[in-house]
């Protein structure tokens, strides 16, 4: 894509997300056949998922990014359950001829597809939606419309759809990184606006160095995470996608919303101000595939036990 095309894409998705028309973003991108062009362009991928994060919007975009051609026209992607053991354990397990499923879907209200796509072992299989129980979990971030997907089906009824779980999960994790970064950007931007408007001690809050440094430090963390997610490309392996790329984005986003909440003071805690929606979104997205704090430990253990760094250096 040319920079001009990306700019137009950015304007379109930002406008639609802001108008609460997330479903239309999916339709626009998928129906026009533009989605694959977007996913093969790192900057455009960052832009679209970032806009979703910034708007605290909810859609099936992540499924499209993660599953590509095998994807959402035929099924919704099931992600590991919240609090699942292991940082990217497949939500499906083989048990005595059965496929046992325990996972979640996001944007559950947009689940009009007839099938779920489920990682089991190394592969990705499709299971009829009617065979599994779908239970909405309002919880921490009701706007995300999370639903738990559980059930047990005969293994033979699950149809292999091609594609591997690890590659799918890695793309989803990188997509989440971009979404987290978009939300972090929005939190910093909201805080910047607030500290310029709000005066105390006869000066705008923005004139206080401690306020400036909090936001600058957050901006540095977000810039580093963004650069990393862009640089690794879409074929990054699972360990690196989850434990390095997404964890760095999660950490940066936690810093961003934390500093934003601090400098926005009491206003930031009102429902009207709206910052809480970004806070909820960031913490929920960070926890998918395991949160950034756990990732640091797992990454360190993995490297020290295997005697090698899991991340491959991005070529100059």
């Amino acid at each position, binding site marked *: 894509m040319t920079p001009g095309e990306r700019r137009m894409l950015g304007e379109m998705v930002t406008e639609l997300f802001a108008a609460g028309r997330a479903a239309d973003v999916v339709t626009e991108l998928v129906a026009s056949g533009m989605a694959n062009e977007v996913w093969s362009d790192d900057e455009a991928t960052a832009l679209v998922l970032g806009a979703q994060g910034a708007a605290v919007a909810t859609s099936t975009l992540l499924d499209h990014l993660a599953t590509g051609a095998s994807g959402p026209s035929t099924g919704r992607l099931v992600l590991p359950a919240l609090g699942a053991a292991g940082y990217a354990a497949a939500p499906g397990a083989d048990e005595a001829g059965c496929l046992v499923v325990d996972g979640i879907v996001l944007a559950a209200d947009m689940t009009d597809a007839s099938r779920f796509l489920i990682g089991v072992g190394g592969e990705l299989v499709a299971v009829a939606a009617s065979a599994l129980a779908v239970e909405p979990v309002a919880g921490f971030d009701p706007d995300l419309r999370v639903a738990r997907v559980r059930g047990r089906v005969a293994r033979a009824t699950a149809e292999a759809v091609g594609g591997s779980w690890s590659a799918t999960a890695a793309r989803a994790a990188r997509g989440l990184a971009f979404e987290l970064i978009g939300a972090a950007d929005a939190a910093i931007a909201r805080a910047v606006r607030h500290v310029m408007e709000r005066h105390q001690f006869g000066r705008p809050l923005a004139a206080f160095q401690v306020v*400036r440094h909090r936001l600058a430090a957050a901006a540095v963390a977000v810039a580093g995470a963004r*650069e990393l997610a862009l640089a690794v490309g879409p074929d990054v392996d699972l360990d690196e996608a989850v434990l*390095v790329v997404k964890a760095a984005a999660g950490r940066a986003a936690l810093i961003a919303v934390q500093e934003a909440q601090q400098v926005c003071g009491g206003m930031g805690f009102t429902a009207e101000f709206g910052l809480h929606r970004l806070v909820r979104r960031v913490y929920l997205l960070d926890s998918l595939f395991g949160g950034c704090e756990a990732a640091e430990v797992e990454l360190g253990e993995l490297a020290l036990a*295997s005697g090698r760094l899991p991340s491959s250096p991005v*070529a*100059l």
Partner: protein
Amino acid sequence: MGSDSARRGPRGGRRPLWSAVRAVEIPQMNVAEHAAALRRWLAGNADALDEYRQRSPSGIETEVRHDRGLMRLLYDAGWGRMGWPEAAGGLGGPAVLRALLYDELGAAGVEVPEAYVMIETCASLLVEYGKPIAAQHLGAFLRGEEIWAQGFSEPEAGSDLAQLRTRAVATDKGFRLSGQKIWTSMGQFSRWAIVLARTGGPESAHRGLTMLWVDLDAPGVTVRPIEASNGRAEFAEMFFDDVAVPADAVIGEVGGGWAAAMYLLQYERGMYAWLRQSVLRRRLREAAERAEGPIGPAAAAAFGRAIQATAMLRARSRRTVRRLSGGENPGPEISIDKALLGAAEQATYEALRLLYWTGMASGSDPRSMTLREEWFYSRATTIFGGAVDVQRDIVAERVLGLPRVH
């Protein structure tokens, strides 16, 4: 030091490779192909490189001697000349070829010479603002025969550099230079220095500065090493007592010193960050390779954070290196690179401290001694080259767009 003792190139193999390197059209050469050729050379000359794999705990003098030997070897093979203009003793090609050398040295388990940091800062400036000086001197630096120093900071002008007081008074033959510079890396080993001095009035701030090329053997120059908290003389102070500096020693224009300094700082912040990520990544890789026994969660988490921080630094400075190599000015955003560098340095050495504390606290083996020194040095990485606090000021104003305050 004599160039003969430094000429310890790879036996055999050197000449044929040299010819091969000469034959290629470097500017057109694909970076990946270039990297592959460099990797082949590093692997093919592993024996000759063996003596350059570890830092010397026996003192900075030994290390500087080491650096000179390795630079000579890389110069003779051609790799140490790539990315520098042919007119200045290089082999031409974009600056990204220099970045590639630093990266591949680290990947091949070879210590990147500290003197390359000084080349990146001083020579990057000279090839743009002081071409005749570069033409005359850069070859000697690339061969490891000369080291140059950067004289910016003063006792009363650190983060607030524009307040510097070293004066260069115009004479009919050039200038008389008087004042003091401090925190000069490798100053005690340097033959020449780039000195930022005031040629305008005392109130001229950043407008009245001029960059000068100063002979450190000239009468009136005194250089004194400063012992740092890690026990090594990492830097020096330079005293100038009415030193005669010729008119053709001006780098850029009289009164244009601030612009020259800002140009240099891009390389100091951008290329240096890239060079260091190569070293940090190597430290982490080798720490993972030799890790054994039960590892506690604190050390594991710190190690994970260090991997993340160096990966972010690499991704960020990769873009900056490409921009610099393409002749683009990254502008104030380079403060982000500098802040990420400090974070990666400290995350790495904190992880190594937690992993190897017993040796670091009580060991007298070379590895423990080196780790102690490097850990202490990492404490300074959020100070030198512009404190992280100043970088945050710049990010707040120039990147986030918060109003200017003073």
